[in-house]
């Protein structure tokens, strides 16, 4: 299965959230066609995910293999590096293999993985590009398995939505996400019981106030922070899959009364158009109850007339 589109219409954080929440495995090909602030970002990226977690990044335009990176840091001799290039790993990441053989430490692998993920953080600055995600199983015995780049993997991984959270905290150019910022009149609601990672103080304040009842504007006032800053932090939490934006439902009141009157009038207009409205019908609105037999009759009618 594939997913394709343009970053202009479906942003990178949205894509990462989709991959994470869907626990997807496979390769995301991202072509950066415009990077006004950093032309070095232009090119083709292959980003690999396993069950919603990023496992490696390969910059096809400025390719430096994981082995070359290890070699350039002087962590392995050229002799061993050459051997590794022809090694047929038994479907485990190169990093895990080297750690198991005591050739690299966990800290060294962390450092290598950070170098890989740093490229992804930069991609949040990219406004224009196209993407194609191929689902590829890491478990199946299909031929596609051969394409999995075990030699480019450190054995480390990070949740796709955690990347978004980290990247958006560092984001400088918010123009890219301006139309994604949540409405100031909307509230936040929690999507999970507890955050899966450590939140910074502002995010934590938003998390605690994410009860579906307080607008972002009110939150900004309550915690004495600029609204825009609150909206940015809220977007980070939304893209991290922790909260969602929701309109606030006002229950009381004259507004509802007016709305009900208007709605009844409109429904009557449509009904009177059918010349079938009765006085009793005019008095009924959202509390109308339906008979099961009527619903079954509708199903039969639709089947017979349009089946």
């Amino acid at each position, binding site marked *: *299965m594939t*997913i*394709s*589109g*343009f970053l*202009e*219409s*479906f942003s990178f954080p*949205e894509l990462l959230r*989709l991959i994470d*929440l*869907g626990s997807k495995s496979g390769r995301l090909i991202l072509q950066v066609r415009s990077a006004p602030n950093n032309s070095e970002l232009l090119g083709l990226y292959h980003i690999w995910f396993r069950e919603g977690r990023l496992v490696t990044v390969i910059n096809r335009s400025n390719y430096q293999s994981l082995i070359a990176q290890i070699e350039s840091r002087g962590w392995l001799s050229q002799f061993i590096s050459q051997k590794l290039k022809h090694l047929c790993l038994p479907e485990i990441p190169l990093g895990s293999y080297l750690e198991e053989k005591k050739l690299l430490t966990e800290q060294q692998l962390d450092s290598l993985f950070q170098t890989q993920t740093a490229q992804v953080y930069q991609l949040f600055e990219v406004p224009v590009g196209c993407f194609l995600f191929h689902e590829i199983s890491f478990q199946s015995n299909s031929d596609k398995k051969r394409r999995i780049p075990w030699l480019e993997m450190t054995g480390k991984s990070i949740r796709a939505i955690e990347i978004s959270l980290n990247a958006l905290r560092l984001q400088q150019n918010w123009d890219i996400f301006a139309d*994604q910022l949540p409405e100031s009149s909307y509230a936040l609601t929690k*999507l999970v019981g507890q955050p899966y990672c450590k939140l910074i103080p502002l995010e934590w304040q938003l998390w605690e106030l994410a009860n*579906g009842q307080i607008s972002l504007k009110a939150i900004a006032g309550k915690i004495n922070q600029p609204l825009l800053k609150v909206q940015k932090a809220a977007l980070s939490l939304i893209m991290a899959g922790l909260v*969602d*934006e*929701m*309109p*606030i*439902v006002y229950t009381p009141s004259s507004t509802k009364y007016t*709305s009900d009157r*208007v*709605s*009844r009038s*409109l*429904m009557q207009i*449509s*009904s009177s*158009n*059918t010349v*079938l*409205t*009765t006085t009793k*019908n005019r008095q009924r*609105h*959202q*509390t*109308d*109850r*339906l*008979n*099961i037999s*009527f*619903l*079954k*009759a*509708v*199903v039969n*009618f*639709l*089947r017979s*007339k*349009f*089946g």
Partner: protein
Amino acid sequence: MEILKIGITGTVGAGKTTFVRAISEIEVVDTERVARDETALIKTTTTVAFDFGRLTLNSGQILHLYGTPGQFRFDFMWDILIPNVHGYVFLVDTSRPQNFRASRRLLNYMKQKTQTPLIIGLTHTDCQGAWQPEDIALTLGLVDSNTRPPIIKVNATNSHSVAQCLILLVEQLLKTDFNVI
């Protein structure tokens, strides 16, 4: 007189007006106006109040269809229409990822405003680049497949397909006790 009121909602260009027109027995009472904002990039006219269609089962039983506007600036019409229907179809154009964000916002809006049963109708599924139902569900925030509303592909120009969609919604109403006696 028994009247089953069904809402058809979704973002701009999802196929709401087409859906109602495909199955209504009467000339749809519409409020189409020339689109003058960004909607004009998608289509020439847009619904500004609502579309009304009807199907008569017999002299005592009728089905009403109410198509809502798709633009957020007409959200007052959503508030008026959706809480007053017995169930609604939420249409998503699967070939327009640029509308998924708005679809998610609109769906959140609807779910927050009413507990009315709904189903998700996926349109334009035969278009190039159309996304799969599972991916659409995730973009709409419907992560748990056990609790999400039913999802069906629908060709809004085809009366048979539209009828299948409506049948699924009515079956959903039968499964719930919401407004059913």
